[in-house]
């Protein structure tokens, strides 16, 4: 564990931002876990708690002109890519003022102006889109990249194989991020991923790939940095496979009968990216507990206000039912 660089890999400002984003995601999800039980939030919700270091460690390298495509478990990616937290909460409550006017919901949050091309409720639906966004990046020649977030489940979808091969063939700047959280819905990755090695599978398509500790922000940041740099240098796609866990079920309400009793309780002790981050930055003297405590209370207030606003906000008008189907009719 001993690690003693005197200079952090990110500026202090970036470290504070990374911590704030991870904490925001955690608080957003923990609060949703509670609020969902009131029955006020419609539909299916898939929480990202536990995986924060992945979204933030990757997106810390990106600007608004880079693209990401996300998954059904997309809240973390949205926050890390800069989507408005209040707008997201309104969307999840199905409100008119939501980021997508209440027409998308938890699984379809998007903000194209932030390069966030959508959460996606089809497992394996996003990677082909990311390859297309990367064609746009390549043709613009502005060194932008696209990121295809997916889970271990998506690593078994044919569309993802097609996307990976096409990215290699076209040599476009797509980084495939397979967040291996150990479970695809209710089935273990140790069962469903035949080779048990997603990064190895990506190498088989002819691109560099590495796995890393997804609970270690700095490990993800470094691996993503190497992968993204290849894209920015015009060297084509790359893959990272952060190994991580999710603290909640596949969806909210999932009784998780496929997990050992107390598995998540234990993982919260041993595999928590926020605790890891705090321990590292204080040990190295990069940030102080007081600085992070201040962020904690900011974030609590932000989420609390987002929930209060969303609960009180009006739903969309019925007249919105058939608008936005087409750009022109």
């Amino acid at each position, binding site marked *: 564990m001993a690690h003693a660089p005197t200079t952090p890999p990110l500026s202090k400002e970036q470290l504070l931002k990374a911590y704030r984003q991870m904490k925001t995601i955690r608080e957003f999800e923990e609060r949703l876990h509670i609020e969902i039980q009131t029955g006020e939030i419609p539909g299916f919700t898939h929480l990202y708690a536990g995986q924060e270091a992945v979204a933030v460690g990757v997106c810390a390298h990106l600007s608004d002109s880079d693209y990401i495509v996300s998954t059904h478990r997309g809240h973390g990616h949205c926050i890390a890519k800069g989507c408005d937290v209040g707008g997201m909460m309104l969307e999840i409550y199905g409100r008119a003022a939501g980021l997508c006017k209440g027409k998308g919901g938890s699984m379809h949050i998007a*903000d*194209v*102006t932030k390069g966030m091309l959508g959460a996606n409720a089809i497992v394996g639906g996003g990677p082909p889109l990311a390859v*297309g966004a990367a*064609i*746009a990046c390549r*043709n613009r020649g502005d060194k932008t990249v696209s990121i295809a977030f997916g889970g271990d489940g998506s690593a078994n979808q044919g569309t993802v194989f097609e996307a990976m091969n096409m990215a290699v063939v076209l040599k476009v700047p797509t980084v495939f991020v397979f967040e291996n959280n150990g479970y695809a819905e209710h089935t273990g990755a140790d069962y469903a991923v035949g080779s048990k090695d997603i990064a190895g599978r990506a190498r088989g398509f002819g691109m560099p790939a590495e796995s890393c500790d997804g609970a270690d922000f700095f490990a993800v940041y470094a691996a993503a940095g190497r992968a993204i740099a290849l894209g920015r240098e015009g060297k084509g796609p790359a893959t990272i496979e952060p190994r991580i866990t999710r603290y909640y079920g596949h969806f909210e309400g999932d009784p998780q009968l496929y997990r050992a009793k107390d598995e998540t309780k234990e993982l919260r002790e041993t595999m928590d990216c926020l605790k890891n981050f705090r321990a590292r930055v204080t040990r190295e003297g990069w940030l102080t507990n007081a600085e992070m405590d201040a962020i904690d209370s900011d974030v609590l207030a932000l989420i609390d206000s987002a929930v209060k606003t969303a609960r009180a906000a009006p739903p969309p008008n019925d007249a919105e039912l058939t608008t936005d189907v*087409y*750009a022109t*009719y």
Partner: protein
Amino acid sequence: MTQKSMRDAINEALHLEMERDPRIIVLGEDVSGGAGGTSGNREASGGIFGVTKGLWPKYGDARVIDTPISESAIIGAAAGAALAGLRPVAELMFADFVGVCMDQIYNQAAKFRYMFGGKGSCPVVIRTAMGAGMNMGAQHSQTIYPFITAVPGMKVVIPSNAYDAKGLMITALRGDDPVMFFEHKALYPRKGEVPDGAYTIPFGEAALVREGEHVTVVALARMVVFAEKAIDALAKEGITCDLIDPRTTSPLDEETILESVASTGRLVVIDESPPRCSVAADIAAMVASKGFRSLKAPIVQVTAPHAPVPFARELERAYVPSPARIEQAIREVLKD
């Protein structure tokens, strides 16, 4: 004006618009052909039907992209590139192949605008070859436009001639919505008058191909050509028909059809697809509910049978609605 085939008319539309708009890219299997391989001929095909010929030599790898045989990735990449500001034309070699990429069409491209609350658009044009008549068998001959017409968010274009194909393609390329553009294989070589320059034909405006007083006939793509034959034969007997080519099934020009039925009182709908949940059934239902009081006789639908497209020449000929069957249907609707 010069005579041009539908193949050349669409090709011309692509050339003109790629010249005009640098955001347009073309991607698909063999759109230029000859990538890799041993001949060194870098434009070995120009599309399997030659519709994308001459684009690669002009615009190169950045804008004319030969892809692996990966339809999901082709359509998905086109949709993703569209979200990221390009205007992609994806070629799905045969319409039958929607089966391998349907998710990217109906769950992704078609729904983005709505799911994103109107923030963002997905201007992708999916060109695809369809239709029977070339003995290509059950997996290369279907007219699957009913599947796509049923999807909110997609626009569906089904041209019946070279002139319309060019104008409709240019409209598709200048629009902000996802479009599926169905090109009937048997119509590719058919020639018609086509101006050299660019022009647009609005979606949702049917063409009145023949004017008459006794029967309204609605037909799409190759069925327009067959209906013309039937109608012209009947005209010699003094039976005259309105022939309406909707040109786009989404949006559908209901008004032109209803106005015609209001004056003729009789409707025959021709569709190369099988009958269940077909465009013929859709138009018949629309007229039955919105134009019932104009009708003097039951609506007659002429469709393919509820069967896959067969291979043998004789069977395939029997499968596709023929001018003779259309003529018979017009006589039948006049009986009552």
